[in-house]
């Protein structure tokens, strides 16, 4: 078991585990510290400076997301430290001078939310003139899913670090320097012309909605109800949240990292391929192709009986080896088990395969 010790945050005694950061301890204790660049799946970058706290004995404010808790440490957050609060007030003001604002003067919110907006509401901000930083997007990027708006980007580098550290795809990068820094690709090409796998994890980790799903730009996070389900595109069993508005799935998001097997990740299919749900061509009931060559609605009993009849006929006429079974990668383990049981027990054939097996 790892060593535990006590640290003090805003006067409160908190238990910390060896190796934990101050932010981790604070979160467990319900002490809120704002963050932008922190994603628990990634190595701390300490770049957004939102989470700075006062640490006894340190001359400078330190990023709680990266600072290791140590026995007896005395930490002060913005709740008790005027210095930290002033730091947050001016920092948020600077972010806002470099950000798209709405008519109330607050950071605008897109379909992907904006953590800066909530934080700005908690601070007494200065009205700083916009800095008009010369940051560029990739206007020619025709990929179907991912849009980048540099005017909402806080350069937390979560997207690029995610693409590197989690996906190991390295399709996107910080590019340029200073106030020109932006998110780019090699040659500023569209994502389809890079190593990008369109997993959409960069959208998911983006804290300010600078990365958004093209299909779901408009619907704001508070307008949807999230329905937890299991992705049925493959057998991994990723958990996902269907974002439902007016009885329609308008987006799919991944649950909080650390809470489900997929740790906040999804692949292109799970995250983006939800259009079939409300597609007009989707089969919604069993059908049998009649003598006329057309499909006709029927009941499950009739459809299954019809299929069984047809397969039995083949077996009778040509022998069991004439039949093969291939199950879909979308099937669960239980379904695959049943599939091989039909093959082996009912039809007495070893011709059974699963499309995800090689």
């Amino acid at each position, binding site marked *: 078991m790892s060593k535990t010790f006590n640290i003090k945050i805003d006067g409160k005694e908190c238990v910390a585990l060896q190796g934990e950061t101050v932010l981790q301890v604070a979160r467990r204790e319900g002490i809120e510290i704002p963050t932008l660049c922190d994603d628990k799946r990634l190595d701390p970058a300490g770049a957004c400076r939102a989470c700075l706290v006062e640490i006894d004995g340190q001359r400078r404010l330190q990023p709680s997301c990266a600072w290791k808790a140590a026995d007896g440490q005395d930490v002060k957050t913005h709740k008790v430290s005027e210095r930290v609060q002033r730091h947050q007030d*001016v920092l948020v003001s600077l972010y806002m001078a470099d950000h798209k604002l709405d008519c109330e003067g607050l950071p605008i919110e897109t379909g992907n939310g904006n953590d800066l907006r909530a934080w700005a509401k908690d601070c007494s901000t200065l009205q700083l003139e916009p800095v008009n930083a010369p940051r560029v997007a990739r206007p020619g990027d025709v990929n179907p899913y991912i849009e980048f708006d540099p005017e909402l980007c806080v350069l937390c580098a979560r997207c690029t670090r995610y693409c590197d550290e989690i996906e190991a795809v390295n399709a996107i990068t910080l590019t340029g320097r200073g*106030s020109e820094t932006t998110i780019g690709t090699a040659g500023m090409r569209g994502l389809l012309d890079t190593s990008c796998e369109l997993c959409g994890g960069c959208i998911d980790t983006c804290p300010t909605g600078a990365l958004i799903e093209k299909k779901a730009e408009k619907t704001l996070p508070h307008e949807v109800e999230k329905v937890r389900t299991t992705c049925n595109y493959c057998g991994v069993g990723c958990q996902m949240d269907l974002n439902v508005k007016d009885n329609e799935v308008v987006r799919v998001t991944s649950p909080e990292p650390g809470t489900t097997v997929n740790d906040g990740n999804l692949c292109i299919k799970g995250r983006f391929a939800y259009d079939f749900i409300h597609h007009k061509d989707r089969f919604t009931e069993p059908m049998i192709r009649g003598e006329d060559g057309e499909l006709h609605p029927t009941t499950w009993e009739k459809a299954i009986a019809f299929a069984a009849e047809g397969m039995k006929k083949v077996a009778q006429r040509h022998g069991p080896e004439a039949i093969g079974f291939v199950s879909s990668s979308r099937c669960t383990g239980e379904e695959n088990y049943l599939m091989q049981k039909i093959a082996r027990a009912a039809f007495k054939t070893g011709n059974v395969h699963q499309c995800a097996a090689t």
Partner: protein
Amino acid sequence: MLKKTADRERVLPLLEELGGVTEENVKRVHELTGVPEADIWGSGTFYHLLKGGPGIRVCNGLSCRIMGSDQLAADLKAKGKEVEEVSCLGQCDRAPAALDESMKVFDAAKQKRSITPDDPRLPLNLGGEQNFEYAALKKARELGRDGILKQIEASGLQGRGGAGFPAHIKWKGVSSQPDPVRYVVCNADEAEPATFKDRETMLRRSDKMIEGMAIAALVVGAKDIYFYIRGEFNAEAEAVQAALKRAGDHVKDWNWHFHRGHGAYICGEETALLESMEGKRGMPRLKPPFPHEFGFRGKPTLVSNVETFACVPYIINEGGEKFKAWGKTEAGSKLYCISGHIHNPGVYELPLGATLEELVQAAGGYMGNPMAFSPGGASSGFLPIDKRNEPLDFKGLQKAGTMLGSAGVVVLNDTVDMARAAQWQLEFFEDESCGQCAPCRIGSRYLHNQVTKYLETGDPAALKHANDVGWEMEEGSICGLGMVAHKPLVDSMKYFPQAFEKR
């Protein structure tokens, strides 16, 4: 995340060899190294010198501006030349300075530059002949690790790169790490505006610097020694290489490696420098961990300045106490660079703690009526001339809210508009910010915009929030660049309020 870095380290040299960042070159480097294309693109676009060859580079540093670099640029353009304005070239004693297409200094100097004349008693003695007997190295081998450290400690040597950190603590720190692989890195990226002492040291006394590095490598137990030399310093890199050849067998115990800068001031910051050596964007790392525990390739690394290393042979030969005795308010002699409104800009070796007045005396006196000065490069902001009798040292200047830094002193006379001077310095910081953290990235652009607006409109309202923003840059930035970038403006507003009134 610590990655396999071996191939990444080739990325920047290869891009340079191929002629800069283009889509084809990035593809080629990807094929040669296996590093993902996006990472190569991201690294390459960080560096000014990898943007592909411009024409003549005209310096827009403060010392060059007050000596008419704008006019020089305009004249060159009128002659049909392609001109690019660039951050301080480290040639402030040749103001207004420019580099031609092959990076040679283009002589348009308006002042007569000078240097402390040969005096063999001086610890560094830039005016003297090089000497490759390497008596100090021999003696150091006899003294051993602890004996050397004792002398370094007794000498009171503080790092000359800017922070003035005690050298013996850093050396001890590296040598006592559990990891047996350690590195020594010489920071020769000298790019702090108004600073050119490392340039002169490399050109004139590489013998001392190399000997000092070898002694440091003995102490910390390094086999591999690296130079990181500013990209524009071609003659200097050649001088170092020539000296290394002359040092010959004395230094054959070590592998000597050369890295070149690629046009980014921030890479003088030690952790940005290490990132750059590893082929990445020159963005400073969070500290801790410091390079002495987690440095180049994650190994314990001693990063030190050219001048710091060059002080070491004297300390070993003559004893730490004798070096220390050279100082006035702090230990040792110090190379001061001076430029701006004085007669003989150059590098002068004076006791550490000399005053501006003494330095200007060595440099041929003031031009015109002095009004303000920068004690240590753009990073030190400005002080009013009535501080001319304060010692120029690390601790005293820090107490006064500024710093000695790289000892790049610039004198401004009363023909200079302080608001304009502040704007020039902020342009530098905006251009050179790595962009990693918001206080610096947004703050330096904000202040630059606002002082420009003030100069255009004459309305002080533009500067209403300058103090708050400056305060936050100092409190919230990751590294030393952002922490001081507000100073030229905020300090000028404090010391020269009349320059910021309604006009």
